[in-house]
């Protein structure tokens, strides 16, 4: 702050002068209070099928979905996804145990490695904090086991979640973010709703602008 003290003081003084003008204009009325946020009923109304809504919204967001019975089925599901789409049988895994400790020996044709990405990985496989039904959004976070580069650099991003991680709203998902010892957010939290896209060329909507061209979600019925 010592280097920018003057600028800071000038800005704060100018803002405060504005705030006192506001008070003059209100003629004694109280300053506007903070409104209570409203959470749409779409994913919270009684009887809502949250998992069903998630499936629909994920597909609307142009991602793809696979559902398997147990964590042991995930490697085969990944192998199937890669083979069906003619993608290279090579994946970069988050070091996080929810992904790296899956029984990858059950999919011997898929070459695995784990760690951050440097831009040479065709496909990543990562866990998630939660999946949000209201818009089919995956919530991801950075940590020592979940590098952010895996969420953006590969051409295909496969996210593995347990069904119990599907929640209704963004607020529900944010409550599950793993915070630091001082209660702080991790360096980054990503909301990802479908694959990367752009309509900047002639308003034609295309997938795969910079981030992953495909987003594939595998939901495990049991625990991860």
């Amino acid at each position: 702050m010592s280097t920018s003290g003057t600028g800071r003081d000038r800005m704060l003084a100018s803002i405060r002068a504005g705030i006192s003008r506001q008070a003059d204009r209100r003629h004694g009325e109280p300053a506007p209070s903070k409104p209570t946020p409203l959470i749409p009923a779409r994913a919270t109304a009684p009887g809502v099928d949250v998992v069903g809504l998630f499936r629909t919204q994920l597909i609307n967001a142009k991602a793809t979905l696979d559902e398997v019975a147990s964590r042991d089925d995930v490697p085969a599901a990944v192998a199937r996804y890669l083979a069906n789409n003619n993608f290279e049988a090579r994946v970069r895994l988050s070091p996080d145990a929810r992904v790296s400790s899956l029984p990858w020996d059950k999919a011997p044709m898929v070459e695995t490695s784990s760690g951050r990405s440097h831009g040479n990985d065709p496909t990543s496989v990562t866990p998630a904090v939660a999946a949000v039904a209201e818009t089919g959004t995956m919530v991801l976070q950075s940590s020592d086991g979940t590098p952010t580069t895996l969420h953006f650099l590969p051409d295909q991003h496969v996210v593995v979640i347990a069904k119990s991680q599907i929640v209704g709203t963004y607020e529900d998902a944010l409550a599950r973010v793993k915070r630091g010892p001082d209660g702080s957010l991790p360096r980054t939290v990503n909301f990802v709703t479908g694959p990367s896209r752009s309509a900047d060329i002639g308003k034609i909507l295309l997938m795969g602008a910079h981030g992953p061209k495909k987003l594939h979600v595998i939901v495990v019925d049991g625990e991860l």
Partner: protein
Amino acid sequence: MSFVPTSNAFKENAAGALKDVPLQEALGIARHHSIQTRLNTVAKMPEFESLRDIGRDLKNHIIANLDHYLLQFEQSVIDRGGKVHWCPDGESARAKVLEICRTVNAKTVTKGKTMIGEEIGINDFLFANGIEPVETDLGEYIIQLRGETPSHIIGPALHVTKAQVEETFRAAHTDLDPKRNLDDAATLMAEAREKLRAGFLKADVGITGANFLIADEGATTIVTNEGNGDLTQTLPRIHIVLASIEKVVPSLKDAMTLLRILARSATGQEQSVYTTFSSGPRRPSDLDGPEEFHVVLIDNGRSAYLGSDLEEMLRCIRCGACLDHCPVYHSVGGHAYGWVYSGPIGSLLTPMLVGVENAKPLPNASTLCGRCESVCPVRIPIPKLLRNWREREFSRAITPQTERSGLWFWAFMAKRPLLYRLVTRIGARALFNLAGQHGRLSSAPLASGWTKHRDLPATQGRTFQEQWKAKKGARS
């Protein structure tokens, strides 16, 4: 230096835009695209109108407590190991960015889309100081190659046709086979993806904007569809966030309100593809992420409008819905407005940022039809604020003399009801008689601007007030 506005030449710019065939083609596509897309998405969210009310009230609350939330934000960023730099104007902000870049001898800087970056002209400044800025948003990349400014807040290359993108890429990517096939938009995008990947991986510093600053978390937020902003802030050693002061929101819960209205208003998506919250540099155990996290807080004249009759423009969350629904923008596109921000919100912001004397026509570049206000997610009364600018122009004698005389004359009449009624009665009957049996005039005094292009439908012989009186039976 930041980009010199040509807003005072709006009329000439607009005349040129109307004759610009590729521009009209691009605008035609955009026109058909945006209105219906937004409507379809809004129809799926019954709470949308309530969310707009809450968004408006939230922004009003923030604007009334801006010092408090900015100080809280600053402390939270410091607590997470980041730095906050307070920059009253564009010059100090540019100098601060350069100073940070120099600490690592940066050669290239990648940039996520930032309107405040355009506003302060950061690219030209870095370039002049030997640092190559690489725009990574596909639209921004296209206009950077073409040496243009954005013509839309969220679709900066909205004015460019696919054929022009091909032309631009052939001219810029000279290392590639000149005979390659670029007919397809997908091929063009793949080429840009390839080119920009190299940029991402070699950049020393990444600069992004911010859609929101979360005060209690010390987090900045970006919303994109491409993922370019995330690569920009994840890969380089330093992440610099450029943000104007009014972007601060109290908490994540409050940000959710704005996130639920932003994408729906902007692109008609239920949610944008990537919404990213960033707080501080990488943690010691993190496997990736920047080593330094800087937030450059920029005022650039905004605080002077707090507590004024124009302060409601500071609620803007830069969705671009007012551009997408404006009949004037639809006809002339963004560049006619002559500076970084265009459309109805540009007509409010540009006079604030470059001085109303440098943007005289903009508050008048509107029919005040009110479509902008009807779609604004935070309910900015844009027509009212445009009128406020017009009043300021009038009182500061910026309005042209003929217009001032006309307004003076009208005011003189309006204050004298008997005289007003008499003169309008004579006028209405005279026009009726002049028009004859067709009821249309091919020319009329003081109306050549209209009659040059089409007939003027004539009055029907009686004034509005006369008809009102007749229909109601009595004066109320």
